[in-house]
């Protein structure tokens, strides 16, 4: 027969502060895990989630991102004429020439950072399906109007409908805010292509092209066609692949975060070990009594192990609450976390609660509870009844 669970729970409650502290240590490990997983998750979502599988990014051959690429107007015309490209409702090809510029912009704290400004034509909203205007209206050409991503709206004071932003050589009027589904676009300011060309003193051409592959068309064939065209030196890749490559660094971060969490969890395991060993040492009389009453070694082992796991469970619950609250605080009070992207401009990452984080936290809690309780539980089960009662 097994030792009743109430014995374990009561024992925990009797040592109230010890239990709270040990569970607290475990809880903090869980909270940190959730927080960091949220950070990485938000980053991955932004980097990897950005990218429509049906879109292609066309850059100059050798360019690593659209910030360092350059295409002429002629190249854009050539690409527009290729077959295999989707057409919009008006029959025109869904080819969006875009120019990237990274001017300074003042931050709330009075500092200065780079912001990514994307000069576009109206077709861009059709090509980038995930981007939707949620406030205000679409910008008009050559009027110095911009629409801003949600991340920009959070981060800068003038970035609301009707507000004005100063960057580049002039001030611009904000006429709309767009939602990008948590993607990198939300940290961008979109302006009229010719306005940006003017501001950046690049009279013709653009940084890159985004286009939609025609439904049913052979995507790879189109990519090959673009690469093989001798009139231009371009290369195309699927938008998802493009952002995946940028996500490389996020993956390194993930490893680092895991290492950090494992180290922390190890520390908490030592804490649990201390607690459980002390518990066993202090209750030799009880153990002797239980054994004398007829409970088996295994029953004792399981009883102490379950005590340790109960502590871990309590810690897990507390940790999840703390983690979620902390995430909310970072997102709301700090407006997310600013990261420098490969393009050297700043993107805001909102922490993303993820099941991965919670599961990872659970894993850690169980590991700590299990490992921290196993050795002491083993010792408890190995006590000789005679010794145990005698020591009482």
């Amino acid at each position, binding site marked *: 027969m097994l030792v009743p669970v109430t014995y374990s729970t009561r024992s925990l409650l009797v040592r109230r502060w010890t239990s709270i502290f040990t569970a607290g240590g475990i809880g903090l490990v869980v909270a940190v895990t959730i927080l960091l997983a949220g950070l990485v998750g938000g980053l991955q979502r932004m980097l990897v989630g950005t990218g429509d599988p049906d879109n292609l990014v066309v850059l100059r051959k050798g360019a690593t991102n659209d910030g360092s690429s350059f295409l002429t107007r002629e190249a854009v015309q050539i690409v527009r004429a290729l077959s295999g490209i989707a057409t919009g409702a008006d029959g025109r090809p869904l080819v969006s020439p875009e120019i990237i510029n990274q001017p300074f912009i003042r931050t709330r704290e009075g500092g200065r950072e780079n912001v990514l400004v994307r000069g576009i034509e109206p077709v861009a909203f059709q090509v980038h399906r995930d981007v939707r205007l949620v406030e205000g209206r679409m910008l008009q050409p050559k009027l110095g109007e911009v629409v801003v991503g949600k991340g920009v709206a959070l981060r800068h004071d003038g970035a609301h409908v009707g507000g004005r932003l100063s960057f580049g050589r002039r001030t611009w009027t904000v006429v709309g805010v767009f939602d990008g589904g948590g993607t990198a676009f939300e940290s961008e300011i979109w302006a009229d292509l010719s306005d940006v060309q003017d501001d950046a003193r690049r009279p013709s051409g653009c940084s890159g092209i985004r286009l939609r592959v025609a439904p049913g068309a052979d995507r790879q064939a189109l990519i090959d066609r673009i690469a093989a065209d001798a009139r231009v030196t371009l290369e195309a890749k699927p938008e998802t692949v493009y952002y995946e490559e940028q996500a490389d660094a996020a993956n390194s971060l993930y490893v680092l975060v895991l290492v950090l969490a494992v180290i922390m969890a190890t520390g908490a395991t030592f804490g649990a070990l201390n607690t459980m060993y*002390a518990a066993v040492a202090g209750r030799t009389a009880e153990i002797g009594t239980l054994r004398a009453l007829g409970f088996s070694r295994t029953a004792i082992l399981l009883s102490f192990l379950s005590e340790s796991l109960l502590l871990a469970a309590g810690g897990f619950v507390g940790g999840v609450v703390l983690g979620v609250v902390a995430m909310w605080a970072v997102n709301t009070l700090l407006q997310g976390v600013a990261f420098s992207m490969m393009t050297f401009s700043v993107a805001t990452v909102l922490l993303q609660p993820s099941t991965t984080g919670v599961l990872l936290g659970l894993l850690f809690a169980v590991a700590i509870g299990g490992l921290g309780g196993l050795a002491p539980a083993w010792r408890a089960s190995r006590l000789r009844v005679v010794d145990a009662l005698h020591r009482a």
Partner: protein
Amino acid sequence: MTYGRLVLRNLSRHPLRSLFTTLSIALSIFLVCAVLSLPSALAAILDKAVSNTRITVHHEAGLTYLLPASYVNKVRGVPGVAAVNHFTWFGGIYDEPKNMFPNFGIDPDTVADMWPDYKIDPAALRRFRAVRNAALVGEQTMRKFGWKVGQMITLRGTAFPVNLTFEIVGMIPAASGNPVVLWFHHKYLEESLQPRPGWPFSGFPFVGMVWVQVDRPEHVERVMRDIDALFHNSEAETAAETEKSFFQNFMSSYQGFIRVILGVGFLVVAAVVLIAANTSAMGVRERIPEIAVLKSLGFRRRPILTVLLCESMLQGLVGGAVGAAGAFFLFRALAAAGKTGGLGPLLGPLGSFYMSPATAMQGLAIALVVGFVSGIVPAWNGARLNVIDALRRLF
């Protein structure tokens, strides 16, 4: 037999428990040191590579806006200007985009005047001036890729449609200068840029930014004002700022990330305080009879409090020393191996592992505080124990 010995003996009472607690603290302080090294890396960069007589002049709108090359000579003519140089960002990649490091086309003739504090070998500087495709490379970047002086390397152009091959002629020491950068001749880039499909320009009469060495620190403010006034209302307005201000602005975008990491560090410390406090409390609880005996012998609250508190603080100190030392040597090994964890693009200069002795000291200090905070309540309660109650509990 002294109080000190009593403290030590008490810690060795439960060797396993002391070991576990010490390791817990060590691991946490290891993490804390790692976390603290980020802002200190920032501070180190600001302190090391910054001079109080150097200023940068860049386009007022942003770093991606270019300045006309003619500006360089115009700036040279401003009174108070001792030397000028210019940087144009090339953005070349050696192997993978994630291992990107800053590389610039510069003026090879005034390097010695502009950056005397970098302490670059004069022979290397001479060769740099003489050879058209010469390159000076920062020590950290050299280690990372395993380059040697005299080696030929090729950088794949991203912002510019050319690949450039360089001969490495010298190293910029990490101790005194910018450890990551690569410098080459601006003219080499210019000559390589010929009109071609996809690049309609001929030549490249632009520079990214102008560096200025001012003759005396007192003149810096005035020189900056004069330069900006010179180009006010022209095609490209300039914003001159001190080197320190430039780097600080550059770093300000990392603040958010650092804040989150510091928050994590705080949670790590909180966790270890809980663990250590638990151990302390357990230890004191078990020793109530002994404390009663000590009190009956005439030991007063203060010595008992001191002994108990010293125990937990000593434990914190030992754990902290192990953790800080571990972090320090691990980071040094990683830095020597040139590893940056591939976080270069994401964290920029913070991605390199650098831990200063000051950070180790901070870690130790935090460990002592942990020892104090975790021990104070149990120690206080233990010292305040009522002898009679305790004795009565025994018999």
